[in-house]
C-alpha cells in the first residue's frame, strides 16, 4: 500500500512538472507561424508583443493588423510571441533571440518595455533588422529602427474634444503606467483641454509606476480610478491604459448621467468587446501602429530601411481621432482648426506634463 502510494505520488508529481513545463513553454514562446497568401515570398517577419498581446482590443491589436496586412499583401511569413505580466528582462531577450534563430528578419518588438532587450539582441545579431515601437534610446545599434508616434498631438485633439463636450468643465485622464510614453499622452491632453478653457480642471491618475507595468492589464483598477474621477465631478475621461482602459470605459458608460469616455490606440467603439458601451465612447485617439508596422516591413523588403527614428505624426496620419458614432461631428470645425494649427506649426504641443 505504502509503496504504491509513493509510486503514484512520484508519477503524479512528475506529470505535473511536465504539464506545467509544457504550459509555461506554451506561454512564453507561444509561437504561431503562418505563411501568407503568396505562399512565402521569403520574407519572414517576427513580432514580439507587449503585455496583453493580440486581442488586447487596443495597442497590440493595432500592431497585429499591420502584421496581417504585411502577410496578405507582401506574402510574408509571420511569427508572433507575447510578453506576460511580471516577466524578467531575460525572458524578453530570450523571446527575441528565438525569433532571430527561427530565421525571422525583420523582428518587430511592440512596446517600450523591449528597449533594453532589443539593444542587446540587435548588437549580437548585426545582420538582422529590428524595429521597436514607441521607444528610442541613443545606445541602440544601427540595425534598429524606432517607430514612434506623436501621441501628444492626437491627445491634444482628444483634449480639445473633451473640453468642448464637458458640461462640468472637469475632465479626467487615466494612464496605465507612469512612463515617459504615457506622460506624452497626458501632456497633450492637458494642453488640448486648457487651450479650450484655461480654467478647466483635469484629474490625472496613473494605475502603476515603472518598472511595475501591471497597470496596462487590470480593468478592475481602471474602473475604480474612473469612478474616483467621476465622483470628483469629471464627465469626460480619457484613458491611455491598454486593456485597463476597458474598465474605465465601463465605469463611465454605466455611471448615471451622460458621461463620455475617450478610447485609445484602436478605435475602441468598433471593438466587439466594448460594443455594449459604444454609445458612451466619444472618440478614440487612434494610433495607427498598423500603418507604421506595414510601412516598416515594406521598407525592409524594398531595402530602403535606414534605421534611426521614424516618427509618425498628425500630418502623416500616424495619429488621429476616430469618428465612429458621429459624436464629435458637431465640433468638427474646432478640431479641424486645432489640427491645422498643429500641422502648420502654429501650436507646439508639449511632450511632458506641466509638473512631475
Amino acid at each position, binding site marked *: 500500500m505504502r509503496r504504491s502510494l509513493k509510486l503514484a505520488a512520484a508519477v503524479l508529481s512528475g506529470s505535473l512538472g511536465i504539464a506545467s513545463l509544457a504550459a509555461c513553454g506554451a*506561454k512564453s514562446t507561444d509561437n504561431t507561424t503562418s505563411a501568407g497568401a503568396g505562399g512565402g515570398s521569403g520574407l519572414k517577419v517576427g513580432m514580439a508583443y507587449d503585455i496583453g498581446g493580440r486581442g488586447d482590443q487596443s495597442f497590440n491589436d493595432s500592431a497585429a493588423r499591420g502584421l496581417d496586412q504585411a502577410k496578405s499583401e507582401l506574402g510574408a511569413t509571420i511569427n508572433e510571441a507575447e510578453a506576460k505580466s511580471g516577466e524578467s528582462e531575460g525572458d524578453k531577450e530570450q523571446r527575441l533571440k528565438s525569433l532571430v534563430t527561427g530565421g525571422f528578419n525583420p523582428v518587430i518588438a511592440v512596446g517600450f518595455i523591449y528597449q533594453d532587450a532589443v539593444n542587446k539582441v540587435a548588437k549580437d545579431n548585426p545582420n538582422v533588422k529590428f524595429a521597436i515601437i514607441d521607444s528610442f534610446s541613443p545606445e541602440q545599434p544601427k540595425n534598429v529602427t524606432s517607430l514612434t508616434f506623436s501621441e501628444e498631438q492626437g491627445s491634444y485633439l482628444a483634449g480639445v474634444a473633451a473640453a468642448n463636450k464637458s458640461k462640468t468643465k472637469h475632465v479626467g485622464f487615466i494612464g496605465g503606467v507612469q512612463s515617459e510614453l504615457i506622460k506624452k499622452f497626458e501632456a497633450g491632453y492637458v494642453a488640448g483641454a486648457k487651450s479650450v478653457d484655461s480654467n478647466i480642471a483635469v484629474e490625472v491618475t*496613473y494605475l502603476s509606476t515603472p518598472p511595475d507595468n501591471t497597470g496596462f492589464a487590470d480593468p478592475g483598477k481602471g474602473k475604480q480610478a474612473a469612478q474616483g474621477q467621476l465622483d470628483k465631478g469629471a464627465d469626460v475621461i480619457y484613458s491611455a491604459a491598454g486593456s485597463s482602459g476597458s474598465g474605465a470605459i465601463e465605469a463611465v458608460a454605466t455611471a448615471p448621467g451622460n458621461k463620455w469616455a475617450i478610447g485609445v490606440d484602436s478605435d475602441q467603439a468598433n471593438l466587439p468587446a466594448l460594443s455594449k458601451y459604444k454609445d458612451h465612447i466619444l472618440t478614440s485617439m487612434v494610433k495607427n501602429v498598423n500603418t507604421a508596422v506595414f510601412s516598416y516591413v515594406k521598407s525592409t523588403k524594398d531595402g530602403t530601411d535606414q534605421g534611426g527614428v521614424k516618427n509618425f505624426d498628425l500630418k502623416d496620419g500616424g495619429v488621429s481621432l476616430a469618428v465612429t458614432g458621429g459624436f464629435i461631428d458637431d465640433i468638427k470645425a474646432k478640431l479641424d482648426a486645432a489640427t491645422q494649427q498643429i500641422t502648420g506649426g502654429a501650436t507646439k504641443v508639449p511632450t511632458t506634463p506641466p509638473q512631475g
Partner: protein
Amino acid sequence: MTTAVAKPKPKSPAAPAKKKSKLTWPVVLLLIAGALVLFAAVGAITGNHGLTSSGQIGAALSSAVPIAMAGLGGLWAERAGVVNIGLEGMMVAGTFCGAWAGFLVNPWVGLLAGMAGGALGGLLHALITVTFGVDHIVSGVGINLLVPGICAYVNRIYYKDYVADGAGANQSPPADSLPTFTVPGLSGWLGDIEQHHWFLVSDVAGILRGLTTELSVVTLIAGAFLVASYFVLWRTVFGLRLRSCGENPTAAESLGVNVYKYKYLAVISSGAFAGLGGAYLSLVAAHFYRDGQTQGRGFIGLAAMIFGNWMPGGLAAGAGLFGFTDSLQLRDADSVHVLLLVVAIAMALLALWQFYRRKFTAGAISIVVAGGVALWYATTDAVQRPLIVATPYVITLVVLALAAQRLRMPKADGQIYRKGQAK
C-alpha cells in the same frame, strides 16, 4: 481603518495579571469609534473629506471582496492544518471558469463555475498534500505555476472562434453584469447629510452610504460566507473536528475523527472560496477573464488571514484595510497625503499609550515615527506618485509587523500528517 490597529489596544490596565488580553466586542467598537473620530477630525482640519466619502467606502469594499475570499480560503485550509499557498492559482481557476460559464450561460452560473474551478484546484492540493504527503508549500507553488498556464493555454485554443464576440488571445469574451443591491430608503438622505460635511455626522453618513449603496450581490454572498464560516467552524461539531485536525491531528484521530476526510473537505472548500474571489474579479470587477488578472491577490489574502490571526473577523478587517488603501490610491491621490496626517496622529496616540504602560523604548520609537510622518505631511503638498502606488503594500507590511506579536497559528499547521503515525 489604519488606526484600528495603529491605535492603542486598550488592555485593561487594572488586570495585567490576566493571562491574555482579548479583543472583546466593546473594545473593538471603541477602537472603531476612535478611528471614526480621528478620520472626522482630519477631514475637518484639512477640508478633504475623501477618506470617508461614500464612493471611497464602496470602492474599498469592492477591492476587499476578492482578498477576503482568498483569505477565507486560507482560513479553512489552515484551520485544518494544510498551508494553502496555492490560493493564487485557485483564484485564477475561478476567474477563468467564472468568465467561461458567465459568457456561455449567465453570470450566476459563472459564480458557481468559478467556485467549482477553484474547488478542483483545492482537490488537487488536497490529493497531493493529504494523500501523498508532499510538502504543502511545494504543492502550492506547483499549483500557482500550473493553473495560470493551463488557463492561458485553454483560453488561446478555446476562444479562437469567438473573436467576433470580443475574445482575444488572452482574454475571454465579455459576460453580462450581475445585479447590484441598494438598501432601500437609505441612500438618498444619507447622501444629503454627507454633502453638508458636518463633523463626524457626515463622515458616519458617508461610510454607511458606501456600505448600503450599489453593492454587488457577490459582496453580499461573500459577507454571508464570512459570517457562516465563523458559525460553522466555531459553533458546530463539524467545525470543532475540522479545527482539531489543524491543532492536533493525532489526538483527533485517537478520538475517532477521520482526519483525512476533514482535511479534504477543508482544502476543497478553501479552493471554492478562492474560486469565488476569482469569479468576482472576472464577473464583477471586470466582465472577462484575462491572463494575470489576479495580480497576487491570493497572496495578499493569505497575508490578510495571518493579520487576522486565523479568524474570520480579523481577516475581514485585514482585507478591508488593504482594500481601503488600494482603492484610495487609485481614486484619489490627494487623500493619500491626508492619510499621512492620520498615521501621524495615530502613532502619537500609540506613543502616549505606550508611555502610560511604561514601555518607554516602544513609546520613543512611536513618537519619532509620528514626528517624522508629521514633518513629511507638513513639508510636502503631495505624496510622490511611486509612493502612492506602494501605499497599500507599505501599510499592510507595517500593520503585519505591528500585529505579528499577537498571532497564534493552528498548532499543526503545515505539518505532514500520516494516518497512524502516533506512537
